[in-house]
């Protein structure tokens, strides 16, 4: 499709313009340190440099911390009338980096499979993604290249790359095309040449790298069920769940029912985030807990990212390498180190 070469000022003005018509989220500073995907308004600063992964990944806008699933009312005949709550308001997620684009792609997969999730999918259908490339790793926690996220851009409707003080703006879908209509952006004269130049500018190696070929990792993780590595990395763990809740591909939730106090026959079912590192996650009826040890929970988390879900969705890895879990863990536990330790351990005791 089309490609344009646009100045920083023009890109900023365009993003502001888009934000007038609908909610547009862009990573911004807001008082406290750290970036958040916040709605852009007149006072927002549109900054592309100095990017660090946002505290929460942008995909969480499609599955918020807490949301009503349906409202109910039990009629006089005793039969409940159920009204689903769906959010079909249009939105744009802009400045989404490759790791998070891939995170949203993976969430799309799990939400479409099996029992499709109408709440996620309704929001997703109304969402336009404007991606943004990375030419240097954001910090020492990043390992997006190692898991094959760095060059991911398939699901972006539009994709921006900052190069030599300008932006290459690539239109990838019809929905993206609609957002640049009437903008009169100058066309990119030599797209192939510019792309080769961009690749040459990209840092090499890009971020942290595995101790083994990435293709071997699912097999290694599968072979290490009783590895001492699990215990080693859990010694300092608080089971606080931060690593789950900041992950772009974690989607577990729990539900609760709230009846109205003034009319107990009516109420709503609410879902809220949950996470497999939390101690009560595996507690079932009668109080039995089938995964009580923190090390078993950690193993489960790693296997979800590097073995179970990538098998189910036929992809290389369910971790996008964004580094959020390691960056935000106050105990300094990093899934990248865990997997590299598993690799090293497998070399010694396969």
């Amino acid at each position, binding site marked *: 499709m089309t490609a344009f070469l646009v100045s920083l000022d023009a890109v900023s003005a365009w993003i502001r313009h888009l934000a007038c018509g609908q909610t547009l989220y862009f990573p911004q500073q807001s008082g406290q340190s750290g970036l958040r995907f916040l709605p852009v308004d007149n006072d927002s600063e549109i900054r592309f440099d100095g990017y660090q992964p946002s505290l929460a990944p942008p995909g969480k806008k499609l599955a918020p911390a807490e949301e009503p699933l349906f409202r109910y009312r039990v009629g006089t005949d005793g039969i409940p009338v159920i009204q689903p709550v769906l959010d079909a308001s249009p939105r744009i997620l802009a400045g989404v980096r490759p790791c998070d684009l891939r995170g949203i792609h993976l969430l799309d997969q799990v939400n479409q499979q099996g029992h499709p999730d109408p709440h996620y999918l309704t929001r997703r259908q109304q969402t336009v993604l404007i991606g943004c490339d990375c030419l240097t790793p954001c910090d020492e926690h990043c390992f997006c290249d190692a898991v094959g996220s760095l060059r991911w851009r398939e699901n972006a409707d539009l994709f921006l790359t900052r190069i030599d003080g300008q932006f290459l703006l690539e239109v990838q879908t019809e929905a993206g095309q609609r957002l640049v209509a009437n903008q009169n952006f100058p066309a990119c004269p030599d797209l192939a040449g510019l792309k080769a130049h961009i690749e040459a500018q990209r840092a090499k190696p890009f971020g942290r790298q595995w101790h083994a070929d990435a293709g071997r990792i699912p097999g290694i993780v599968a072979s290490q069920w009783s590895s001492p590595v699990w215990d080693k990395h859990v010694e*300092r*763990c608080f089971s*606080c769940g*931060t690593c789950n*809740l900041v992950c772009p591909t974690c989607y577990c939730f729990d539900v609760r029912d709230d*009846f109205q*106090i003034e009319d107990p026959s009516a109420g709503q079912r609410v879902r809220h*985030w949950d996470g497999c590192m939390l101690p009560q996650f595996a507690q079932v009826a009668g109080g039995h807990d089938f995964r009580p040890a923190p090390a078993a929970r950690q193993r489960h988390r790693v296997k979800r990212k590097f073995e179970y879900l990538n098998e189910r969705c036929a992809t290389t890895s369910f971790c996008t390498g964004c580094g959020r879990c390691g960056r935000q863990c106050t105990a300094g536990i990093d899934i990248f180190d865990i997997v590299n330790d598993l690799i090293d351990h497998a070399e010694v005791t396969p």
Partner: protein
Amino acid sequence: MKPKVAFFDFASCEGCQLAVLNCEDILLDLLALVDIVEFREAITGTAPYYDVAFIEGSINREQDAERLRDIRARSAVLVAMGACACIGNVQARSNFIAPAENFKRVYGSEERNQVQSDPEFWPLWAHTRVRAVREVVKVDYELRGCPLVPEEFVHLVKSLVAGTIPRFAAHAVCVECKMHENTCVFDRGDTCMGQITRGGCQAICITNGYRCDGCRGLVPNANMAAHLGLLQSKGLDNREIANRYRLFCSAEPLGRVGRSGHE
């Protein structure tokens, strides 16, 4: 028949009872569901039997313990309400200091001498130990926090009336910081007890720019060794750490670790 509900206060500031009265927008709806038979902050009167007894405050003197046992014997469900009742709160810090030393700090040496010479002089401070309610009687539910969280109070009353099992967070405060997308206190250059403290408060202190000092008590199986090491690695000395751990958690095992291991 509507359940009979009573509120009792022991050593506390009665702030939790006020927090209940402050549920203004739904208080009248709640009152339609229950009969309040004792509530010193709001009504006078007594009853012989209670379906639900809410206990506010820590248990400091033996006569308090006696009164509590009597209430327990006449109550179907007993709820500890607020940090004082659940974990002892700030007053339980006095457990770490010999009574005579406490008294000297507060009243000077004259009264301290008097207490040792005058058998008639037996002031309030001469209790044996500040106790949480569960150290004296069986507790069915705990409404944690200083003060309690009104939403949790309402949730409990609704569940008791509807006959459903109330659910309270047993996860760390970190969960709610993530839900509010807070910058971690450790990334703001301060230290925090959120990882070992029970959530349910919506991380209200951190969301409003402060840190968590642990008023809701410990999560089950709190990794105290890791937390101690973390605070030490941030440059806190053991005295500061013990003070932090004891501020609210004095009646919790954590406060005792602060005492025995590091002073």
